[in-house]
């Protein structure tokens, strides 16, 4: 076995681009680019379709649609205020509960917890976020509702019944139930995004505060203060989710179209009324009114999201994968 193997010589000569190469590069780039531009097409189609579908209702009721309280398919007259109100109350209640818990969790994970605890709890928080909303709905309906009906709501009525907020009959389902379920559902968003944002603030801020004789809490307060715009973004994103959440709310809110001051009373949200009535909507105007609610919901969440994404991107310097994934 001696002697070198014979290897055929490679084609020699001056480097020369094959004529097709440039064209192929360009075609590949443009092909992928076209797929990316489909995003605009998709969003435009959604907007177009909803705006078109809402047309008859907009022409029939104008701005009165948003302030009218009457929802009467028989007389074909529609006002969405009860649903706007229900969305505002249930989401507001959810944020009231979720904000302190979510922010507290984020602070604990980003600033105080040992690395392993941070990893473990963050994982659990991610799991919470991945539970389908129908599962929260069934839990709220069959577990939380009886608990509220038999224990919590009677207690609230007995001790705080002088407030209009806690008057009425303990149904179990209603605004309070919806608010609690929504809070459970949006806490992961607030916690994981705020954690990322806190981790993105420079550690030197805490060092500076500690070196001045600040306690742990005082040094963390400096970091939280610096992270405020980003945290605000996280909160608005969470609010956007609460506003648009459908299934869990539909199952636990009671689906009444009356406006009540009491948190114990049943109500409806914009999303839940669409879920409940869309397939049953017989008249053209009825259907159009429901599509107009979808339009309002869409516009509302669009504005909140657009603003919140900007805040989160700015606060994390565009590095946060949470900004894309959450």
């Amino acid at each position, binding site marked *: 076995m001696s002697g070198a193997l014979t290897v055929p010589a490679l084609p020699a000569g001056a480097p020369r681009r094959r004529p097709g190469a440039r064209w192929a590069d360009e075609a590949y780039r443009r*092909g992928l680019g076209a797929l990316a531009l489909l995003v*605009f097409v998709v969003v435009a189609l959604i907007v177009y379709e909803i705006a078109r579908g809402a047309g008859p209702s907009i022409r029939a009721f104008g701005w009165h649609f948003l302030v009218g309280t009457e929802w009467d398919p028989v007389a074909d007259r529609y006002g969405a205020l009860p649903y706007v109100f229900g969305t505002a109350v249930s989401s507001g209640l959810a944020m009231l509960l979720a904000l302190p818990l979510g922010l507290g969790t984020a602070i604990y994970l980003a600033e105080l917890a040992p690395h392993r605890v941070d990893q473990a709890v963050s*994982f659990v928080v991610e799991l919470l976020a991945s539970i389908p909303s129908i599962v929260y709905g*069934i839990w709220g309906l069959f577990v939380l509702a009886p608990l509220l009906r038999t224990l919590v709501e009677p207690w609230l009525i007995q001790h705080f019944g002088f407030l209009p907020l806690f008057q009425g009959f303990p149904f179990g389902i209603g605004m309070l139930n919806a608010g609690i379920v929504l809070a459970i559902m949006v806490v992961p968003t607030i916690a994981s995004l705020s954690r990322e944002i806190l981790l993105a603030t420079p550690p030197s801020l805490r060092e500076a505060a500690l070196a001045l004789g600040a306690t742990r809490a005082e040094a963390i307060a400096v970091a939280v203060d610096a992270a405020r715009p980003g945290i605000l973004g996280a909160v608005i994103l969470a609010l956007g989710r609460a506003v648009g959440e459908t299934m869990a709310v539909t199952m636990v809110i009671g689906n009444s179209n009356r406006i009540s001051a009491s948190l114990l009373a049943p109500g409806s949200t914009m999303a839940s009324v669409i879920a409940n009535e869309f397939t049953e909507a017989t008249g053209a105007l009825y259907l159009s009114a429901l599509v107009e609610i979808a339009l309002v919901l869409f516009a509302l969440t669009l504005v909140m999201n657009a603003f919140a994404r900007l805040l989160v991107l700015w606060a994390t310097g565009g590095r946060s994968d949470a900004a894309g994934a959450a």
Partner: protein
Amino acid sequence: MPQAQPEPGRERVLRPLHTGRPALRRRVWDACFVGASGLSAFVVMVPLALVVWHLLAKGLPELNLDFFLHLPKPVGETGGGMANAIVGTLILVGIATLIAVPVGVGAGVWLAEFGRGRLAAAVRYTADVMSGIPSIVVGVAVYGLVVVPMGRFSALAGGVALALLMLPTIIRSTEEVVRLVPRSYREAALALGAPRWRTTQDVVIPAASAGIVTSCLLALARASGETAPLLFTALGNRFWSLRVDQPMASMPVFIYDYARAPYDDWNRQAWTGALVLMLLVTLLSALVRLTTRRAPRP
């Protein structure tokens, strides 16, 4: 020389700051603060424990082979399963994957490899904002765009609705993982004389393939738990149907219908369905997250 020399003569005489241990108020506040944040992290985990516990307690007793193999029984008859809904969910998610993965991965690769400038920023931002559109709104839009022209509810419409929900997640996470491919890989390929597109296609995408699959699975897991966009697209079906132009059953809608029904038997089956759905969705995303956690982050 600096003009801002300190002027000791003009310095006001200040009494010394009090010394000694920090005020009790500060120490108490510190302890409360730390305690409260630890407590909230604990409280946040309680619902998960409760949900899992109740799912197991109420869903496990009804869980048997029939549940996976049989069709729903009419009201009044006990037993039966949700075989059609399980298959339906697989088909719906399959359709959605067929639509969303090519588009989403392509767009993500474009953003990572060629996405500079304003256009790319706009695509990114639009994808982010799109992920915030409530799923019920997507359902309404697909009803108008697909169901009405077709003249009937269909699996195809449901698949399209789910695809729209998967798209932004796939785009953004594909971009993320493709960006993680080291520059040296690209340089090595380019240095061998490979054209740019061959470099992306033969080197970069294979190197990122595990991450791309992961992000698609994550989007898939999320989509398979979605209910709202299916309510008026795929609708639901109590019978066997494999036709994509017909209404199709799905697990989430099955659970929704059974949970709201006034029959205890149906309610129990709803719990079992929820348990199966939760296992499917959560185990899938937990697995995905556990495997990606080891990968380096940008």
